């Protein structure tokens, strides 16, 4: 088991290293920051001093090593768009807002999707099952920015129950969280349903019933424990994509999180900040998958002892 975890962590770190190379190169492919940041009529001296200041005159690999060395200390340089702001610090300042929204969306997804998927499997072919299918179809076919706009129109403009955008109270986070969660609810519920259906047919479920185990226990203890592996795998992707995929929704709802920073930084070709955002996203992605790997160990004894 220790070997299993070591391997997981090692491969995460390696992936992170590869991402750092890509991130470094991408920012350089998108055009010189000189053109973006200095006025058109800048003198050659201004340009030269700028290049020297940012190390843009050195060979690419040297630039990368400098970048990596600084990055390891959390130093991604200072923002070009927001002068005086430390790039990573600026991103980290926005992280709590994203985590808050993402956390709520994850909570909504799991709390709705698991029971929905289980109920759909247990009462296969019943109205509950059909309802779950329609719900899933809706969630997966609506783009979330469109859903966000519709939600604003219905609940903020028409009914006036919730604020249209911005942040501050809990009420502000409800609509964006739902907009993010719906797609994930659909995916997770469908996976839970199919995985449960398969397990419910197994001989050991029959044996549990034969032993006199109640139906509730059969479903929540015997079946779910085995069916959980598939939705759990997806949960890693879900958590990661909710946290990193909030870019669009944060823009729709003017939610001042990392996604919003990412969009603004890209617009301004503020590449220290863009790099910081991408690395921060990558770390979130790795961590949530690592948590899932740990959960596997809890759920499936074959991994614990394998």
């Amino acid at each position, binding site marked *: 088991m220790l070997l299993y975890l070591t391997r997981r962590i090692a491969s995460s770190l390696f992936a992170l290293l590869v991402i750092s190379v890509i991130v470094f190169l991408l920012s350089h492919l998108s055009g010189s920051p000189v053109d973006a940041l200095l006025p058109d009529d800048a003198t050659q001296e201004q340009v030269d001093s700028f290049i020297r200041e940012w190390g843009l005159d050195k060979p690419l690999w040297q630039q990368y090593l400098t970048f990596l060395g600084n990055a390891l200390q959390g130093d991604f340089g200072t923002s070009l768009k927001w002068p005086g702001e430390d790039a990573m610090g600026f991103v980290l300042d926005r992280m709590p807002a994203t985590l808050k929204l993402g956390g709520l969306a994850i909570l909504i997804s799991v709390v709705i999707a698991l029971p929905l998927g289980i109920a759909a499997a247990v009462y296969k072919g019943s109205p509950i099952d059909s309802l779950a299918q329609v719900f899933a179809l809706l969630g997966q076919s609506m783009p979330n920015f469109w859903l966000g706009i519709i939600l604003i129109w219905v609940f903020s403009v028409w009914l006036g129950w919730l604020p249209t955008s911005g942040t501050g109270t809990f009420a502000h986070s409800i609509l964006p969280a739902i907009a993010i969660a719906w797609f994930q609810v659909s995916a997770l519920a469908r996976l839970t349903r199919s995985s449960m259906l398969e397990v419910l047919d197994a001989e050991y479920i029959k044996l*549990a019933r034969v*032993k*006199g185990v109640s139906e509730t226990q059969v479903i929540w203890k015997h079946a779910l424990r*085995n069916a959980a592996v598939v939705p759990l795998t997806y949960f890693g992707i879900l958590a990661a994509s909710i946290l990193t995929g909030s870019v669009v929704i944060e823009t729709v709802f003017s939610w001042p999180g990392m996604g919003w920073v990412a969009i603004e930084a890209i617009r301004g070709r503020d590449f220290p900040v863009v790099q910081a955002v991408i690395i921060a996203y990558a770390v979130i992605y790795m961590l949530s998958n690592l948590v899932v790997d740990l959960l596997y160990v809890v759920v499936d004894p074959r991994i614990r002892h394998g």
Partner: protein
Amino acid sequence: MTQSQDAPLLEVKDLRVEISTKAGSFFPVNGHSFSVRSGETLGIVGESGSGKSMTAMSLVRLLPKHAARITQGSIKLNGRELLSLSEAEMRKVRGSEIAMILQDPQTSLNPAFTAGQQISEALRLHSPGPRSTLRARAIDALRKVKVAAPEHRVDNYPSELSGGMRQRVVGAIAISCEPKIIIADEPTTSLDVTVQAQYLRLLSELQQETGMGIIFITHDFGIVANLCHKIVVMYFGRIVESGTVERIFARPAHPYTEALIGAVPKLRGHKGRLRTIEGQPPIPTEPLSGCPFAPRCEKADNRCFNELPPTVDADGDGEHLASCWRVLEQ
């Protein structure tokens, strides 16, 4: 109970199960009557699809929901009618009074729980006690089914056990609550022959110790001969012949039974090709008049194709019944 020693433990009368499908409905269990006494082993024999497993599942009332249901008959355990129990009462019967051993040891244990957890779950449901006692009793049950080093095996997950070992754990679950009846549904089909023989010997040893009744479901007439006291032969959802092992092997009354016995290889005597039964059973949802075995029967005449044969007393003493026109003619 005020039952005499000789009264049957389990008495099934005129049991009928109906399955409804889009293509129509049919009866995989059609008018079954049989009984099991304490210490007795009843073999239910028949080919795949004859309704053996349906019979087993209907005894514990665990038929597939919606699709199948018991439409008539009676199942009495120690004189108590099981068909009129509520679902909660029936749950108390399952595992504690009637236990079951399922077909496939590879898949009938839950991979997420240890052997001990799965044994003590049954114990906890039917005779609760503190955790440490449950564990000790689980180890005890493993010892009874002759698992070596039970105090270590108790903490093993199914994936860490061999096929024969898993089957023993399934057996340990079944006997843990000291049931009156064990239903074994082809428990050895997927085991190799030596393990199979050991397991069957173990079952009869346990039976001698506890006096439980066993219902043994199989398609293998060879096993039946060694293990069972009485036999019920099923074909197409009906009992075509029933009686003691000695009678049926000595004088099979139904041509189907005769053919099945003929299909078992023998060590001595007659050499040559084994007999097989040509053809397939009828399609359940299609209307049928006459004896369902008639199309495959060498001795069938016009009447066999047109009229369903009655159940008749083959030897005149009520110990050997068969449903065949030929028996009447003798």
